[in-house]
Each structure stands twice: as C-alpha cells, then as structure tokens.
C-alpha cells in the first residue's frame, strides 16, 4: 500500500559548520506533501528555505549535515541513506530546479542533451525517446519552437526560456516531486509570468507535488496550496494560502505582507534646480547598432527619478553612459549646469566625486579581500586626503548613518557580511564621497523584501537629510511606486513614456506601460489565473 503522503519530513534538524563548531541552522521542521499539492516555503535569506528544499532530496550543501529527524520519500527513508539509494532517487523521483538556470546549465552542451542525461543515466529510456519526450514537454511549457529549441546552446536562450527549459529538465524522469528554489527571483516581471504559468501547468495538470521556495509572498500565493513561513530555521506559521494571506496569525507574517506598501512623504521635494540633464544621447557597443537612441532625461535636486523597463531595455546601459563607462556617441550630458565629458578618463576628480553609483550585486561590488574600514575609508582618503584618526572617526559616523554598529563592523572582511549589510556598505562608500547624485542600478533586486525595504527607507532618509538626487534603475514596479517622484519607462533603448509618478501610473497608459503594470504580482491567489485568462482571450481575439 502506498502511503498517503509523498514526502514526510519529521523533526528535522540540520547543522552547519561555522565559527569552528556545528551550529543548528534548521530547527525541528516537519512537513507533509501530498500528490498534486504545492507547498510554499517562504522567508528571508538565511531562513533555511533552500536547506530544507535540498534536505528533501537527502542532500546538504558542503559544510552542512543532517543532524537528526526523518525524511521519508514515498515511504523510503532518506535520512542517513546510502549514497547509492539517494542516487537512484534523485532526478528520478524528486528533482530540483535551481534559482539561476543560466548558472546551472553547462554552457557547452545543447539543452536537449542535458535534458536527456537524467533519463538515460537512470536507465529509464534511451536518448531518442528522451528527445521525443523533451519536445512534448517544451511544448507544454510554452517554449517557442519546441522541435528546434532543444538543439540550441544555453546562451542562445533568454533568461525566462532557460528557466523553463530547466523546469522541463526536472520533468525528464517524470519525478513525483519537484523542488523549485526561487525559480523566478532573477527574472523580470514579464518573464516571471511565463515561468509561473509553467509551474502551474506542471503541478495542476500533471498532478505532481512541489515544494516552492521563494522570498516573495505575492509569487508564492499564485502557485501554492499551503504556505510555511520560516525564519532563522524555525517555523513561524503554516497554513492554507488564502487563510494565511487574509488572516496571518504571527506579526512576522504580517510584516512580510505589508512590505509592498512603503509609505511616502515628500513634501519638501519640489525644488527646481537641475542636477543632471541628458539630451539626445545615443550609444552603441559595436559601433553600428544603437542600444540607446535619443534619450532625454532631467533629474532635479533632492528628487528620485525611476528608470523602468524589462531586462535588455537599455536601463543599465544608460547608467554606463551617464557614469562615462560607455562614452555616448551623440548628445550631451550636463551635470550641475556644466557639460560633462562623455569619457570617464577625461572627467576631473571633482565631477567623479559628485556622481556616485551603487550596484545591483553587492557581492561583486565589494572587494572580497578588503575590510569595511578600507572600503569606506578609501574615498575619504582619495577625494579629501583624510586618513588616520580623522578618517576612522568619519568611517564610524558613516557606519552609524547606515545603521550598522561601527565597533562591530569596521574590521570585518566584506565577505563576512550578509547581502543587506553589503548593500549598506556600498551606500556608505558612495556617501563618503559626499555626492550630489547617485545612480542606483537595481540596488534592491538581489535582496529579500524586508531587507530591500530597509535599504529603500535608508536611501529615502538620506535624501531628506542631504537632498541627494537618485536615478533609480529597477524592474520592480512596487519599488517605483514606493520611492519615485518621476518615472521614465524604457523599451528597446528608447524612452516611451515619462512624467510625474501620478501621471504615469494613472490611466490611460502607453500600451507597454499597461503590460508592465499588469505583470506585477499582487497579493491575491487568483491573480495569475485571471491574468493568463485575460491574455489568452486577447490573444485569441487578435
């Protein structure tokens, strides 16, 4: 007789090795998963979501171990199971879809060969049969041109397509359970829809069970039947999706729910002096095709301009042009009333100091071999010649301003910080130069919601104190609504709409703006179904 629950985890403890001893990172987690059911695991980074997801396959990351408990997959115990049994189960009975498909595919094999690897190795089918199945699954997951697409290399697919190919690959051995680990986190809102639709297709129509791991409650609300809220490796709250969203019991869950409604207060922000003016700017990477065309943009003192668009629309390229990393081929940029040389090398130190940039990935924007004190101290020394005691005092002040305890952080290596702390250090580094203008390139998209909210309110607070101007590049419209004064929408290297926030956000919109706005998940479990239905009907009527 088959047990009722496909996956049964009981009293699971997982330990991680750091600070020279074993520390418990997952505390006493139990969960059940039935056939056809999707369980959402949600929480900030460090909550242990991925660790639990991997543990469901009897696997732990390096430096971790399963300490005690039981993991039963279809009645088979995986805790302390021999490697051979685990190998026969992984891929065949339970499969894993990683966060970044781009990093998880082997770049030098064709998609379909990677698809066939699992079933052929497990001896379930031969290559030809696997390839035939692949085409069927690609078709079901709405991948364009399913007969041919498998023969492309990973770099020839877009991010959203790759993520769906990854989902298809997880399906290759027809497992009973799929673990989705943040499959849409790295995608922009319009491609996120496609992947979510695929996930729904698989779990509902193919009757598979799934664990869906994410930090975005609005996303998980679309696909999960039940949700477990985790924090610091412990269960905070568990419940049926609709119940949890309507009536959260715990304060932490309510915090997660309320993140997307950041308050705004910008009474004193109507000054008129222009900080940055971009006129008729064009730019190209290869000398022939313009990636930016006729960009006009004005940023005023103490204001925030949000630059919105999907990936590939030229947002980050515009940031590179403004900072001088990619000299514009045509047009002018003026900064504080003075024309600014298009090329970084010809700009003087004073202009470099006044125009700072904060990056999307705090991990790569900080030198892993430097200490916090050096990172923040260098601009002080470089621009103002401040060093020694005076510098240390300033560094401590800056750390206090970004709400990190100076004594605790000043001597840490940048690798010893969490994502949110790293981004705060990046902000402090920019502030140390006392800039007039900061380009923020997707500064919150690599962070989880609560941390991102902290960063946004920090930036807003700093703006009130010092009237810095921001150019805020993002694909997240929730962020835009929260902090922007002015919105600029880009598509394919052009600005298609710009204006004051209320203007842009009130209908009638430009057609693309409409699509963009409609793609942002809202905290409503029926939102995805309604949207897909609406799109299908307009598609048919065309």
């Amino acid at each position, binding site marked *: 007789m088959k047990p009722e629950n496909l996956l049964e985890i009981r009293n699971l403890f997982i330990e991680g*090795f*750091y600070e*020279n001893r074993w520390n418990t990172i997952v505390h006493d987690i139990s969960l059940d998963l039935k056939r056809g059911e999707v369980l959402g695991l949600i929480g900030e980074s460090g909550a242990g979501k991925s660790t639990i997801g991997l543990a469901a396959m009897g696997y732990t990351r*390096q*430096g971790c171990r399963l300490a005690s408990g039981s993991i039963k997959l279809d009645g088979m115990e995986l805790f302390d199971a021999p490697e051979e049994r685990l190998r026969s189960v992984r891929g065949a009975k339970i499969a894993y879809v990683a966060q970044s498909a781009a990093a998880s595919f082997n770049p030098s094999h064709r998609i379909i060969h990677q698809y066939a690897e699992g079933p052929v190795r497990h001896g379930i089918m031969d290559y030809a049969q696997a390839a035939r199945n692949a085409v069927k699954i690609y078709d079901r997951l709405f991948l364009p041109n399913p007969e041919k697409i498998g023969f492309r290399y990973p770099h020839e697919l877009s991010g959203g397509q790759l993520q769906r190919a990854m989902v298809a690959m997880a399906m290759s051995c027809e497992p009973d359970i799929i673990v989705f680990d943040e499959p849409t986190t790295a995608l922009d809102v319009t491609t996120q829809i496609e992947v979510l639709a695929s996930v729904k297709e698989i779990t509902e129509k193919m009757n598979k069970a799934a664990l869906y791991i994410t930090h975005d409650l609005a996303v998980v609300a679309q696909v999960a039947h039940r949700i477990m809220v985790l924090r610091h490796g412990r269960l905070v709250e568990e419940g049926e999706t609709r119940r949890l969203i309507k009536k959260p019991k715990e304060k932490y869950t309510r915090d997660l729910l309320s993140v997307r409604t950041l308050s705004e207060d910008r009474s004193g922000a109507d000054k008129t002096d222009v900080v940055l003016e971009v006129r008729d700017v064009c730019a190209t990477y290869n000398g022939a095709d313009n990636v930016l065309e006729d960009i006009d943009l004005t940023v005023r003192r103490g204001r925030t301009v949000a630059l919105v668009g999907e990936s590939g629309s030229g947002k980050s390229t515009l940031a590179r042009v403004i*900072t*001088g*990393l990619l000299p514009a081929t045509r047009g002018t940029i003026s900064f504080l009333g003075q024309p600014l040389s298009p090329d*970084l090398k010809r*700009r003087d*130190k004073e202009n*470099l100091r006044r125009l*700072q*940039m904060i*990056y999307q*990935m705090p991990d*790569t*924007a*900080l*030198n*892993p*071999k*430097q200490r916090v004190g050096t990172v923040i101290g*260098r*601009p002080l020394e*470089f621009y103002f010649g401040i060093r020694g005691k005076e510098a240390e005092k300033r560094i401590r002040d800056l750390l206090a301003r970004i709400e990190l305890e100076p004594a605790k952080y000043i001597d840490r290596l940048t*690798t010893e910080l969490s994502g949110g702390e790293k981004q705060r250090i990046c902000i402090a*580094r920019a502030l140390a*130069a006392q800039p007039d203008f900061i380009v923020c390139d997707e500064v919150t998209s690599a962070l989880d919601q609560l941390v991102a909210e902290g960063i946004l309110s920090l930036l807003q607070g700093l703006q009130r104190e010092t009237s810095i101007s921001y150019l805020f590049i993002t694909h997240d419209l929730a962020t835009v609504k929260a902090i922007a004064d002015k919105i600029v929408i880009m598509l394919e290297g052009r600005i298609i709409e710009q204006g004051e926030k209320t203007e842009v956000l009130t209908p009638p919109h430009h057609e693309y703006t409409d699509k963009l706005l409609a793609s942002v998940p809202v905290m409503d479990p029926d939102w995805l179904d309604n949207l897909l239905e609406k799109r299908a009907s307009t598609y048919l009527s065309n």
Partner: protein
Amino acid sequence: MLNLIAKSPLSARIGLCIVVFNIVVAIFAPLVAPYPETQVVGDVWEGMSGEFPLGTDHLGRDLLSRLIFGARNTIALAFITTMLSFLSGTALGFVAAVKGGWIDHLFSRIIDIVMAFPTLIFALMILSVLGSSLPILVVTIAVLDSTRVYRLARAVAMDIGVMDFVEVARLRGEGLWWIMRREILPNAMPSLVAEFGLRFCFVFLFIASLSFLGLGLQPPLADWGGMVRENAGAITFGIFVPLIPAAAIAFLTVGVNLIVDWFLHLASGLRN
C-alpha cells in the same frame, strides 16, 4: 604567523618541516656535509657504507656531501628564478588586463613570439651567445618562465577586472597602481600561489636539462638535476645512485606543494 602555523593542518606542517629542513641544510652545508663539495674521496659508484652514507658518484665524490651542497645551488637558484619570473610576468599580465587595447595586444604578441620557440632552444641560443654565467642563467630562465606566468596572470586579472568593485575603483578615478595592487592582486593570489609551487619545481628540471647540454650550472658545482643526469648511466648497472638526487627533488616538490595547498585552502576561505 606562529598562530597561523599552530592552527595549520598536519599536511601543511609536514610540508613546512620538509622545506625548513632543506633550507637549514642548504645554509649550513659546509658544517653538515662530511666531505667537501668537489673532492674525489673514494672509488666510482661505491655502495653505502659507514664512510660514505649514500655511496659515491661517477667520479668517486661523496654523494651525501654533493646532495647537501646541491641543495644550496638548486633551491637558491630555483627560488630566485621563480620569484623573478613571477614579479615580471604578473606585473605585465596585470597591466595588459587592466589597460587592455593596444597595450594588451603589444604585450601579448611579444609573449606569443617568445613562446613560439621551444624554451630549451631559446635558452640555448641566449646562453651560447651571452655565455653561461649564473646571473644570465637566472635571467634567461626567468624570462622564459614569465611568459607562462604572464598568460595566467592576464587571464586571472581579466576575470577579476570585470567585477563591479574594479569598476567602482575606476569610477572613483583610481590609478593603475591602486587597481593592480589593491583590487586585483589580493584576489588573484590563490591562482598565482598555486602556479608558483608548480613553476618552482619545473625550474629544477629545466636547469638539469640545461646542465645536460653543458649550459646550466657548470661542473664541478653540484645541483640535483645535474646529479641525476651525471649518474644516469649507473641505472643500467643496477646501481640506484641517480635515484637519490631524484628523490630529493621529489621530496622538496611534495613539501612545497603541501604548503601551497594549505595557502590555497586559506585563501579560498573554505572551512574544513
């Protein structure tokens, strides 16, 4: 430093002991060695005895004494050469990677040309024109070796150069020296250290092959590579004399690489 050693794993300690042992022996060679470096003291290829602990070589010199004096020449020479090749190769490689454009092209093509010649022939050419004195030997091998180091350093620096923190430094207006020294070098260290361990050992062998052609260390100076070659004929008579200097090379190589592994482990930041 002592603290670091106290926490090091067993393998690193073994490596450290081997290297320190070799260096101490090399420094105090005249005190440790039972016989002078070049004096013929016995018969050809005598076996081990109380008089000659490791036997004698093809001219009847005490093998142990030659091994001890050889450590001096070999280690010092290999170390200086490798250092020199790493300093020049890394510096040029970093400049090429950071500056890019025509500087990168110029450096890389010159290096390509040097690499196009088989190293041994290139070294022969230079040494026969300029004569085989120690400084010229060191510089020649260092130059030839630095081409490989250049390739590695450039590739590693290219990878690091595209990271955002280097871009941040550029946007700040930092000069070439800061970017090379403070942003790139600390992150390139693991790869460079690993390569150092390997190159260090290759240099022994290269000196040995040059000696074989009469252009390396000149007899009667002892070096381990040369000793293997001089006594190679003994193998055909079933005498294991050439294996002893070979074993010394292997011993030191293992020691150096155990330390290198430990460095890599430290640099990677992995725990256990």
